[in-house]
């Protein structure tokens, strides 16, 4: 099965581990991701001002280009890309005025027929967690994992239609299929502070400390996420938190695809495990 794939800006630079591990693990599950022949930045944020059509153009062009490929789907793994592509697609499908304006601008005739999908959905619906359980040659038994969804994957529920907006479980189902132990904790859909890392670092640090502490208090040994910005905020700030709070306990923050790749026995050097600030290898290589 081949599906068109949109990596997005960060996956070709700062989050190569997410890109490689997504392609690698899905390939091991029989799904080949074929990168769109031409793509641009998706715009990262969905414009919340009603009159800001220009903020939707980039995503609309990516969707219109994906419609020229076979398959009717577009896979993207970064939470921001997934959020903006899915919401712009929703607008094009349901708002005739927006559709007309965007099509006029792009000189296209795109009506929202592409279905943006997330690799977590592919794992659940196209592959099946039972198949993943059988294919996971390397058991992650005993590893305690907290799943972090953040904000963009699950909200707003009416448009994202991803999972339960307050208590999603799709990542936990995957972790269970891989044989690892799921850690329940209260902060899995609270925001890490996102782009505020550029503007108000103190806010992000407080959010990150809160999220990490709530996971480690429940016994988590690793956190997984699908968002390169969540990953960065949760990972990069740990050293600074430790400097201010000597009792702080560090915890590796990985992409869920890296855990999946490990379980599927992909070559470790292809997973980008060496690119994290808190090194997950001491925990995972022996896991």
């Amino acid at each position, binding site marked *: 099965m081949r599906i068109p794939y949109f990596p*997005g*800006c*960060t996956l070709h*630079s*700062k*989050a190569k581990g997410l890109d490689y591990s997504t392609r690698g693990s899905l390939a091991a599950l029989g799904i080949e991701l074929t990168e769109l022949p031409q793509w641009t*930045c998706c*715009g*990262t*944020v969905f*414009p*919340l*001002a*009603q*009159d*800001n059509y220009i*903020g939707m153009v980039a995503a609309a062009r990516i969707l219109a280009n994906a419609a020229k490929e076979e398959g009717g789907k577009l896979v993207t793994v*970064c939470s*921001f890309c997934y959020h903006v592509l899915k919401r712009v697609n929703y607008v094009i499908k349901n708002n005739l005025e927006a559709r007309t304006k965007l099509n006029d601008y792009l000189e296209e005739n795109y009506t929202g027929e592409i279905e943006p999908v997330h690799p977590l959905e592919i794992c659940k619906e196209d592959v099946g967690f039972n198949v993943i359980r059988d294919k996971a040659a390397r058991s992650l038994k005993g590893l305690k994992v907290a799943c972090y969804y*953040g*904000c963009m994957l699950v*909200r*707003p*529920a009416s448009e994202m239609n991803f999972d339960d*907006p*307050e208590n999603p479980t799709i990542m936990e189902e995957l972790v269970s299929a891989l044989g690892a132990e799921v850690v329940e904790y209260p902060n899995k*859909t*609270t*925001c890490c*502070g*996102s*782009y*505020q*890392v*550029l*503007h*108000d*670092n*103190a*806010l992000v640090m*407080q*959010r990150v400390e809160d999220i990490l502490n709530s996971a480690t208090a429940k016994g988590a040994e690793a956190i997984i996420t699908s968002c*390169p*910005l969540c990953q*960065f905020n949760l990972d*990069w700030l740990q050293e600074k938190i430790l400097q201010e709070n000597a009792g702080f306990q560090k915890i590796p923050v990985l992409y869920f695809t890296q855990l999946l790749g490990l379980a599927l026995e992909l070559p470790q050097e292809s997973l980008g495990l060496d690119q994290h600030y808190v090194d997950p290898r001491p925990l995972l290589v022996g896991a």
Partner: protein
Amino acid sequence: MAMVLSSKISRELVERIKEISGQNPNLCMQCGTCSAGCTGREFMDFLPRQVMRMIQLGNAKALNFKSIWICSTCLICTARCPRGIDIARLMEALRVINLRQGREVLVAEKIPLELLTQVPQMALTSGFRKLSA
């Protein structure tokens, strides 16, 4: 009961905010659910509930609140509002009015180099889109 605002400036501001956001701020009944769940509440000068009230009153001071720049559009307020108001869109309207007049809080030159070289690209594009004119 619809609220009647006495000053022309207030009426114009409310209309502008309604036009940009597509939301009706008068639906807010001040329950505070938005403030309770807000990601940035501890760093805000006025909580989302209070921002909503100022919008209802057409008070232009809301445009100068620090809170509107602290909002990270995580949509938790929007998801939980019992009146179905997309509060994130109202916050965006206040930012957009500022930004379209050239007022911004995220200035590229002021971002520390260490941060600039390490953040993922998506933080820069999203940050500039939300906080820079």
